[in-house]
């Protein structure tokens, strides 16, 4: 086996081209290193292109090799994409967060990967470059081919970065998970939301829960309940009910029953929406 630490994106693509399908890309390695390794690995963790975190041209751009720890610490992400900072702070353990990457969290395609769930709520797209040199953008929720299977072919495609519109004035986001312990535990359920308000009226909302399907799943019916209203006590109660009833969830002998998971989706949906709504209102600059 050979292991090459790539020095720039073009070199990484060249190695993939030359290896004719034998090489795969790797970044933090926290998931892939536990599996059977391919003949060649190309490490993307040191590239300039994949390690930048910036706001430019009206978009937040997060390099795919930005670690969970750096994302959770970043003032830019905490202030303009709070859901992502909250999700990244809960992945694995400090040791895993120091090396695991956001791009890896997406490409590994686990159904309830915390960062990916937050990214879908924020409306993030992955910027993908292939060995032909073509670059395309795809919504994160479109990158799932099945349970733990990504549509990204890591022997010929590289996620360079993830991009989305940062939360502006009048917008807020939040993420919550429920797990048996607060560290080193996979979530039984995780939920994220992004809301835009004007005055106290909800103008737009994106609400995501997992694990429901192979990909983080939008709760469209729950979102519809909240369009163009000023939410009050009754609406929040309806949200809990709607979110719980619109998901098709499975139980697992190791984790919890389907019924319990459904209950958790409802409870977390209400809490996350309230939190995102409050943040949106607080950032609305007092305009009514």
């Amino acid at each position, binding site marked *: 086996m*050979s*292991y090459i630490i790539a020095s720039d994106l073009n070199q990484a693509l060249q190695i993939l081209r030359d290896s004719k399908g034998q090489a795969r890309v790797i970044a933090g390695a*926290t998931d892939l290193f*536990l599996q059977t*390794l391919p003949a060649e*690995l190309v490490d993307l963790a040191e590239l300039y292109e994949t390690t930048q975190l910036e706001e430019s041209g009206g978009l937040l751009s997060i390099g795919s090799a930005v670690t969970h720890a750096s994302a959770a610490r970043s003032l830019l992400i905490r202030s303009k994409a709070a859901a992502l900072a909250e999700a990244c702070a809960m992945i694995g*353990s*400090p*040791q895993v967060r120091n090396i695991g990457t956001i791009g890896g969290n997406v490409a590994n395609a686990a159904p309830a990967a915390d960062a990916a769930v937050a990214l879908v709520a924020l409306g993030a797209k992955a910027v993908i470059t292939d060995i032909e040199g073509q670059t395309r953008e795809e919504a994160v929720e479109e990158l799932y081919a099945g349970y733990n299977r990504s549509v990204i072919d890591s022997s010929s495609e590289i996620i360079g970065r993830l991009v989305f519109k940062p939360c502006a004035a009048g917008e807020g986001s939040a993420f919550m998970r429920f797990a048996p312990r607060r560290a*080193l535990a996979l979530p039984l359920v995780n939920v994220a939301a992004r809301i835009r308000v004007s005055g106290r009226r909800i103008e737009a909302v994106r609400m995501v829960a997992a694990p429901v399907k192979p990909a983080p799943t939008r709760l469209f019916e729950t979102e519809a309940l909240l369009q163009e209203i000023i939410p009050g006590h009754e609406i929040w109660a309806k949200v809990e009910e709607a979110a719980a009833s619109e998901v098709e969830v499975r139980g697992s002998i190791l984790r919890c029953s389907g019924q319990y998971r459904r209950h958790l989706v409802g409870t977390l949906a209400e809490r996350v929406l309230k939190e995102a709504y409050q943040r949106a209102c607080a950032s609305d600059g007092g305009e009514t």
Partner: protein
Amino acid sequence: MKKQAINFELNGEPVEVFTEASGSLLHLLRGQLGLLGTKEGCGAGECGACTVLLDNQPVNACLVPAAKIEGKQVQTIESLSTSNTVHPLQESFVKKGAVQCGFCTPGMVLSAYALLKANPDPTPGEVKEAISGNLCRCSGYKQVEEAVLDAAEKKDQASSED
């Protein structure tokens, strides 16, 4: 299996090794370099017994491909003590009864060491967070938390005496 040369800094000294690229940093440290202070628990990134510092950040050595450390700094538990003395943080672990079987201790100490370096005056919550990736199955976490806070206090006193 193909071997490759890797240059890195180990406990402050430059080192060159010739090793299997697909092996883990943990096995490189224990098997090839004879540094047995780093423990192998689960081997899957879930227990923290193999915690080492990679460029000053705690990581699970079992999840780090050996080839990934090229050009980086690795610090293991062996760097904290000499044959005659132990680090003040280790003294606090002894004083507070934070060691029972000792298997998780090297990892706990390194997680705490990294915390205190970045944040010399942590809150109890920050200590809990810092050691949340290190599992202990015997003495529990309370004594460890007390030991880390004790070490922080000592550091505080030492710097105010300067």
